[in-house]
Structures are given as structure tokens and as C-alpha cells.
């Protein structure tokens, strides 16, 4: 029901504005996304890459996960090269160059 969704979004933004939290609206929406994903039984997948990914690569990545999962992409130059995937902020698959360097010179 698009009309109802619009109404809910409007009310939500109004509440955020009233509380003076418009600056944090992004964070709130993100937290909401994480919450809803959890409710649906999905996982929050965070994909960090050293450089921005092309849409095709992103799509390929997203295909690997379930429908219920929330896949977020971000750029983290500190990785130097490669990417790092974190699941629910608790499991990590790191195939970045930074990790390799750290391991090599440990």
C-alpha cells in the first residue's frame, strides 16, 4: 500500500525532526534496516573494498547472499587492495592486501 507507506515515512521524519535528530536520520534508518533484517531472519553483510566497486561486481556479490540479507557496500582505502566481508558484525572474511601485509611482517 504505497499511500500508507508514504504516510508512515512522513510521520517518521516528522518525529525525527521534532526530536532534533535530523542529522542522525541516516544512522537511524541504517539501524532500522538492521533491525528489520534481523526480524526477517536475514543477516547484515558489510562489504568493504579498497576502491569503489562497479555495479556489476556489486550485483555479483549480492547474488551470493540470501534474499533476506541486507548487503551494504562501502569504500575503505585503508585496506590498500582487495575487500573484506563482515557478517552480522561478528564473522569476517578478509582478503585485503592490508591483512596479507600484516601477516607477512608480524
Amino acid at each position, binding site marked *: 500500500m504505497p499511500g500508507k507507506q508514504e504516510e508512515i515515512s512522513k510521520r517518521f521524519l516528522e518525529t525525527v525532526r521534532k526530536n532534533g535528530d535530523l542529522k542522525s536520520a541516516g544512522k537511524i534508518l541504517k539501524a532500522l534496516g538492521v533491525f528489520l533484517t534481523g526480524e526477517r531472519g536475514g543477516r547484515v553483510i558489510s562489504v568493504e573494498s579498497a576502491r569503489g566497486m562497479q555495479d556489476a561486481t556489486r550485483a555479483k556479490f549480492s547474488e551470493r547472499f540470501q534474499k533476506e540479507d541486507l548487503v551494504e557496500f562501502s569504500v575503505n582505502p*585503508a585496506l590498500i587492495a582487495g575487500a573484506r566481508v*563482515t557478517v*552480522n*558484525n*561478528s*564473522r*569476517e*572474511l*578478509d*582478503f585485503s592486501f592490508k*591483512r*596479507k601485509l600484516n*601477516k*607477512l611482517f608480524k
Partner: protein
Amino acid sequence: MSYEIIEKLKKEIAGFKDEAEFRDVGIVTETGDGIAKISGLTNALSQELLYIESAHGEVPVLAANLEDNSIGVILLGDAVAVKVGDRARKSGKILSIKVGQELLGRVVDSLGRPADGKGVIFRNPESAKDYFLERAAPSVIERQSVDTPLHTGIKAIDAMIPIGRGQRELILGDRQIGKTAIALDTILNQKSDKTGRQVICIYVAVGQKNSKVAQVLKLLEEEGASKYTVIVSAPASSPAALQYLAPFAGCAIGEYFMDKGEDALVIYDDLSKHAIAYRELSLLLRRPPGREAYPGDIFYLHSRLLERAAKLRKEQGGGSLTALPIIETQLGDVSAYIPTNVISITDGQIYLEPKLFYQGVRPAVNVGLSVSRVGSKAQTKAMKKVAGKLRLELAQFRELEAFVKFASDLDENTKQKIQRGARLAEMLKQEDRAPMEFYKAVLIIYAAISGFLDGIKLSDVKKYERELLEYLGKLHKTLLIEIEKTGDISGKTEAALKTAIQDFTGNIFNK
């Protein structure tokens, strides 16, 4: 870059194999004031050592609060380096420090790192052992009652509030009243005390000024006591986390020596500041505050620390760990929260009173309020013989002390008791850094309770004490040696001693 370096790097890289694999991680979500919050790492253990991978290297942290969705951790390293978003990993280890014989004479921090600028502690790393900071106290079957005295070298304490090896005796009093002095005299006295094995001393400075720690170290070095002493320093300038861990580090070092079958003494200077550091951490970790804003487990914090002091049975090696915690009171209020807690945990207390201190009675031990619940079992027979009468005479003196002002109206018997009491009190005065061997203390107390001081002017008591010891040391050394060796005064020795003191008092001192 030289060719050789490039070749070495190539060689290293050629042999490098790496495969990405899943691992458990946590992510820092909050940080500041020496603590951080980590999400993830759901299988972390309480008190486990975790590492935060910051941009400047790994920072060790201690898992303190295990909550539903996050872990509250205490930062043990460079707190400024930790940023929100940094990864954290488990170590699977409980916090521990390296301990070994090479610690003697050194100053270390709460994590066992050298703090005296003398470089690496363990030249041979294999000689060091890892000891957990938190360890369960020895069980009932592993323990035995205290049976060996730990002489402090302070007459009033060794006679009336005796401490045994493995005991926990609290030293409490206001600021600047001589609490640390008693602890330091006890350390110094271990150099000359031949009652048992050499006692290894550990001085834990919590929240003290760096200058004070430096003074302590200097004193111990000057007096030759540093070779059997370790200092654990968490000065006022160090983070609350290190101040909180320092007593546990000191205790772990003491346990190493105890487990080796040796006798160790650990001084916690002081647990009031330790409680304050723990309160700070607890409030930052958002634990519910209780009385005086201390967390609910403040009692458990000190009880689990002090319970680790013990005298082990022979089958367990027969070692001991004696604890002398220090508590600073505010305006003599012993009924405050932390003092009452620690009083109830320990096996007795030495209470230092400001009134006595300003009257010139130093050490300002209030013998009436001070007790030792188990130490008398370990007291030498010689000291026991003289101390019983001393306690009685002093108690009578304290009762009659109020009448001193009306001295002219008193009967002879009361006058005599007051006179003797005053001399006994004078005899018990002792300067700092001048601990006295127990057998010498026995001689002086014996002379005093036998009435040899009665005819001596109050101002001459110290002179009498000095000269009597000199006289007996020169002409009756065998008597001194016998008391020192046997720890007892036999009938024969007592008779000889009486004659010698009589001779000295009548024919030498009063002449």
C-alpha cells in the same frame, strides 16, 4: 634500497602462503576514558584478554562487561589509538604476567613491563613463568594455620599485634600518619630477621605519586633491601585500568614465590585508591552504583584479592603469602564503607591514631583498637612471655591516664602504675627506618616490665635502651644469641638476663 634487502624481502614473500578464512571479530562501537564497547565476539569470556587492531598496532583490552549485544572492555594499552570501527579479536587467554626470580630488585607496572629504565627483565625468557592476575585462592585443604612470625621490627606491633606468615593484617589511618612507614620498616626488617626463611617482599603502589615510588625505591636500595623486593607501580598518572590491576599483579608475583615454597609479603599501598580506581571504571562501564557510588562487587574485589594470602601446608610446598593492605581513612572515620569492608576481610588491623601521632607517639599505633586475630599463634615464646604483661600494664595505664593531672592526690600504687605505663609508652616509641630485631625488642620489653625503667627519667628511656643493648651485645652476647636462635627465654637464661640488666642499671647506667 640495497640489493641484499630486496633479495631478503623477495625470499620472505616467496615463502609466504596465505588463505583468507572466516574468523570471529568484534567491532569497536564506542571508545573513550579508557574503556570501549565492542559489538560482536559473542563467545568472548569474562576477564578474557582481547586485542583491538588499531591503526597503530594491536591494543590489549580486558573483557569486563558481557552484555546482550556488546562487550564493555577496559583498555590496557594506548587508548588514543583505538577508533570506532576498529576490529577486535579474541586471544583465548586470561590476563597474566611474567614472573620469575629476575623480578627481584625491579620496578614493574601492572602488566609486568619494566618501569625503572633498567631494560629487559627476563634475559632468559625461559626462566619466566606466566601467572594469572586473577586466580582462585588456595582451598581449605591446601592451607594450614599460621605458625611462623613475620617480624615487622616495630616493638609495639611485634609484641602486641603480632603478624604471622600467611596472615592478612590491615594498616589503617589518616593521611600522613605513618602507614607506609610501617610497611617499609617491615620490608627493611626482613634483611636482618633470622626467624625463618628470607621473606620476599612485594610493594604495590596504587595511585601514589611517582615521587613517592622513587623515594621508596631509593630507600630500599640504600638499605640493601631491594635485592629481595619487587615494586609494582601504578602511579596516580597511570590509567584507572592499571591501578585496578596492580594489586592483582603484585599478588600473582607473591603467589609465584609462595608456590616455590618460599615466604612472600605483599603490601597493597593503598586499597582506598584501588577502590576509587575500580569505582571509576565501573561507572564508565555503566555498572549500577551502590553505596558511595561504589559498584556492588567492591567487597568481592577486595575479598578475592586478600583471600589469596595463605599459609600452605607442607604437602603444598609450605610457602606463604602474607598481605598487608593499607587503607586511608578520612578524619579517622573507620566506619566508612571501604575501611569496614577490609576490616571484616582481614585477620586484624593496626590502627594509627592522629591524636597519638601529634602527641609524639610514633608509630602512632592505637593498641586498644588494633588487633591481630591469628598472629599470636605464630609469636615466638620469648615475645609471648613478655608481651602478655606489657599489654596488661599498658591497658591499666590507659585507664589511669586520665588521672595523671591529679597526680598529687593519688595513692602510691596508682602513681607507680602511671609512672611505669608512661615509661612503657616511651619505650615503645620508635623512629622510622630503624626496625629492631625481635630478640632485642624482647630484652627491652623484659627490662621495662620487670621494673628496671621505673627509676629512670622519662627523657632517658631511649638512652637507656640504646646503652643496655650495647652493653648486653658486648658482654652477654651468648644470651642474645640464645634468645635469637631458640626464640625462647629459658629459666636459666632469664636468671642470667635479670642479673645482667640489674648490673647494668645499678652499676653502669645510674652511676
